[in-house]
């Protein structure tokens, strides 16, 4: 392999190489420093005059005297079933002292788009044991549902609780967790690893770790390695894979860093104009394929800068993912765990996964009615602050109390409390029963007669 010593510019993570033979776009590059260290990169722009290489590690130590080798192929990663139980670095090297991965297959990490015609609609209900997800923002197999959180909120605990408790009721199929950390701290890593070890989840898991002090640019490939592994496990080995990506905000920062180094015209808040397309190339790698056994379900975590849901990162994510779970600081301050605010939360695939034969026939209507009641009760809180509780009509007072009950009994649950969907829905009915029946306009009469505690107790 030919080695070039024609580096003419180094700017941040980018290395510009002159006078090369034709080099392919997105080709893998090895850069050999004078001390023998080899660093990896990828071609971002290629012409017969100059080739731009994005280096995945720190460019410290690279200079005019470094050699550049173009490998002639795009980045591929070795995958195998033996990856389960392994801990790898953000660029896929073993980090647990174990042997190198022996490749059963080498796959392109870019990942091709699933042909929409080949997709299977996701519709298998996943029970997470968390009421605010199961009953009101249901997760289904093959969905991509992110957690929108903020700094200092317990999103990691929620993600872990979901990873621990998630199951398809009545199913015993093989499952796996692929965990990709981008720029998280050592402490957070310890928290995740301790939990995986405590619950024995590690043996079903593949872990990719890019920590806060690892090179930022490496974060660009970490999720791609994780998703390539997930697709291999799902569509070639038949596993149901849950992918946890955390923290997508760090990924986007790395993207912005490269954009700035290339002197690109920035989009909103300095993030590159192609960030939507780039994020889509990650988030869209979830789903089911007709005739294949496995599935890829994505649960990505992102921290909203300044808790601002209109910030480009949560905004663009929300347009691609199939809903979002929003973690709320006010609820957290009230000491409620999990502090999930159902109002801005949404699961777009919920309707496909619930109802008769899947969860329960009253699921959709109970959920809608609770939303409506909680939204109205929550609005009334503002009014109470001005006019006092006594000035409210009786109906409004009941709604106000409903909002409190909803937070304290429905939202609040223990870290290890695993509620079945029936328990969650029955709890919902119990709360709705505190409202007069004529306020329950979103539920058909028949369902009220069947599930309303008032009629149920009569039957009993």
């Amino acid at each position, binding site marked *: 392999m030919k080695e070039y010593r024609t580096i003419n510019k180094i700017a941040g993570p980018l290395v510009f190489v002159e006078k090369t033979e034709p080099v392919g*776009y997105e080709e893998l590059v090895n850069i050999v420093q004078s001390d023998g260290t080899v660093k990896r990169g990828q071609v971002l722009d290629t012409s017969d005059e100059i080739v731009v290489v994005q280096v995945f590690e720190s460019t410290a130590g690279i200079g005019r005297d470094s050699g550049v080798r173009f490998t002639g192929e795009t980045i591929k990663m070795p995958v195998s079933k033996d990856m389960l139980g392994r801990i790898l670095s953000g660029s896929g090297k073993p980090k647990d002292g174990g042997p190198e991965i022996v490749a059963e297959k080498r796959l392109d990490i870019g990942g091709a788009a699933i042909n929409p015609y080949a997709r299977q609609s996701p519709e298998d209900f996943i029970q997470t044991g968390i009421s605010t997800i199961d009953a009101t923002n249901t997760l289904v197999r093959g*969905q991509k549902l992110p957690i929108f959180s903020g700094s200092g909120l317990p999103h990691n605990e929620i993600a872990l609780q979901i990873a621990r408790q998630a199951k398809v009721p009545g199913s015993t199929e093989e499952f796996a967790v692929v965990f990709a950390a981008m720029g998280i701290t050592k402490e957070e890593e310890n928290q995740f690893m301790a939990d995986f070890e405590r619950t024995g989840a590690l043996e079903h898991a593949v872990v990719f770790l890019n920590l806060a002090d690892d090179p930022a640019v490496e974060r660009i490939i970490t999720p791609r390695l994780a998703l390539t592994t997930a697709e291999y496990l799902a569509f070639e080995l038949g596993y149901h894979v849950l992918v946890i990506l955390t923290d997508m905000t760090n990924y986007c920062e790395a993207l912005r860093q490269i954009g700035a180094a290339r002197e690109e015209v920035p989009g909103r808040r300095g993030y590159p104009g192609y960030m939507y397309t780039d994020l*889509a190339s990650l988030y869209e790698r979830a789903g089911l394929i007709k005739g294949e056994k496995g599935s890829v379900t994505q649960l990505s975590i992102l921290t909203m800068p300044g808790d601002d849901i209109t910030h480009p990162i949560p*905004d663009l994510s929300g347009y691609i993912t199939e809903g979002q779970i929003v973690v709320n600081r006010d609820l957290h301050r009230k000491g409620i765990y999990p502090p999930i605010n159902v109002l801005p939360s*949404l699961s777009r695939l919920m309707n496909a996964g619930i109802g008769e034969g899947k969860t329960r026939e009253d699921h959709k209507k109970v959920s809608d009615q609770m939303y409506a009641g909680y939204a109205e009760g929550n609005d009334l809180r503002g009014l109470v602050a001005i006019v006092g509780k006594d000035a409210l009509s009786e109906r409004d007072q009941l709604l106000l109390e409903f909002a409190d009950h909803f937070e304290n009994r429905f939202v609040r649950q223990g870290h290890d409390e695993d509620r079945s969907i029936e328990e969650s829905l029955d709890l919902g009915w119990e709360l709705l029963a505190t409202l007069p029946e004529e306020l329950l306009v979103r539920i058909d*009469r028949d369902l009220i007669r069947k599930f309303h505690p008032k009629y149920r107790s009569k039957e009993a």
Partner: protein
Amino acid sequence: MKGESKGILKRISGPVVTAVGLEAHMYDVVQVGDEQLMGEVIRIEGDKTIIQVYENTSGIRPGEPVSNTGLSLAVELGPGLLTSIYDGIQRPLEVLVDKMGNFIERGVTAPGLSHDKKWDFKPLVKAGDEAAPGAIIGEVQETNIVTRIMVPPNFKGGVVKEIKSGAFTVDEVVCTLDSGEDVKMMQVWPVRVPRPVTEKMNPDIPLVTGQRILDGLFPVAKGGTAAIPGPFGSGKTVTQQALAKWSDAQIVVYIGCGERGNEMTEVLTEFPGLEDPKSGKPLMERTVLIANTSNMPVAAREASVYTGITIAEYFRDMGYDVSLMADSTSRWAEAMREISSRLEEMPGEEGYPAYLAARLSEFYERAGRVETLNGDSGSVTVIGAVSPPGGDFSEPVTQNTLRIVKCFWALDAKLSQRRHFPAINWLNSYSLYLDTLSKWYDENVSPEWNGLRTWAMEILQKEAELQEIVQLVGSDALPDEEQVTIEVARMLREIFLQQNAFDPVDTYCSMEKQYDIMVAIKLYADLAYAALRAGVAPGRIVTITAKNDLPQIKFTQDYKADIEAIRKAMEAEFVKLREAL
């Protein structure tokens, strides 16, 4: 004809590549690299030709060959379009699965129409008849929809010399003209050129959608344009899909432009099982889908809206009413931005190219109710979803869209959070078709309809003002009459405006039912104000029980008897209230 020319690649940067030594014209389709990836010329600069490539370019090197086909990006139009699902450059996705498996790889071509399948062609003209461009010479019963075979608009036309009957492929000649031209069932049309029409007409017939807030308050005309902007999670896609399902167009073209893969799959699995409320046939039989999901190549996303609207125009030329949904035009604009920034063009607002407004208006202007070349009338209604970043309507795509479209359905995240669906804000939305459509409503719904609509809007407007006071002092502090107004407005919102797209009955509401529901609410309002004047306390008026059954009407198929009973019960209850005085 422009000849074939070859050049070599000089530079590759994402979806944009540069070639040298190529004879090219703007928007020529070229084949790039050893794998002959499809691309289109978007700029010529000295000896350099800049090309956007419709497929992933990784691994392509400088020095690889580029050849020019000399043709523009075009679609194949003919029998076989209906029920198909295409990517942005009209490659049938079903065929691609057979050719390259579950994932979309590159370098595979597939024609838009099947060239092997034989269709039963039935002639409608005979030898000696005149056949001008656009004239219908025959038809193919494709699904329950008839595909009419026309003389292509770019032909000279003439007298029919010979016309055949029977089973043919789309490539076989079915008719010869004395001008020497051979008419086949398939036409090829460049996507960036609007298909010609005789004249554009005024849109004065509504596109009935079965959605109460749209038909009732903010109707769009057949051949009109509408925009649905809204932040994520406010129900754009559900609204678009409801329109695709229930609007009374004969043909629906649905473009999933840079959106989620699973959503297209949902349409694919759901539509074949849904019945057209009019024909009783599966909705899929009248539908053409274009799916270029967010992770498919960005240049093909740019092309997808043109592919879609050209197909829509083709059916319009047959005399059909076509509705075209583009979800989402923001992703299309972003594709333009991405290509533009790779070209290092001087950016306009927020990095979008300076020609954003021009491209948007060119696209929406291809909508319209027209007199076709053969003297028939047809229409293309364009309904574009807009995804404003952060829900901010002041951003360039929303603003440039609003300057063109006549109908604005403003989705509101606050409404969707309280599960008020469709989450269309009735205060911010508007339709500029009300005047031109009022005659139709008079004749086809009721002469009272336009008055009822104005009344409902007034009440809702009034409520918005009153809510500000209620927020400050509580509802009990309002004067009696206004407490009743608040209750009537609540009924309008919860009964008329809210509609459950997932309920088998409520998902589609006929104009007649819309009218009946509105009349029932108006009846309550009239009775309530009358009772108030007679001295009944507002607390008793707003709590009458007969009206509590009204919401159930929405979920009842044969509602006529029920609504009559409710009206009677309301009247009786009010009589009692007044007697009790």
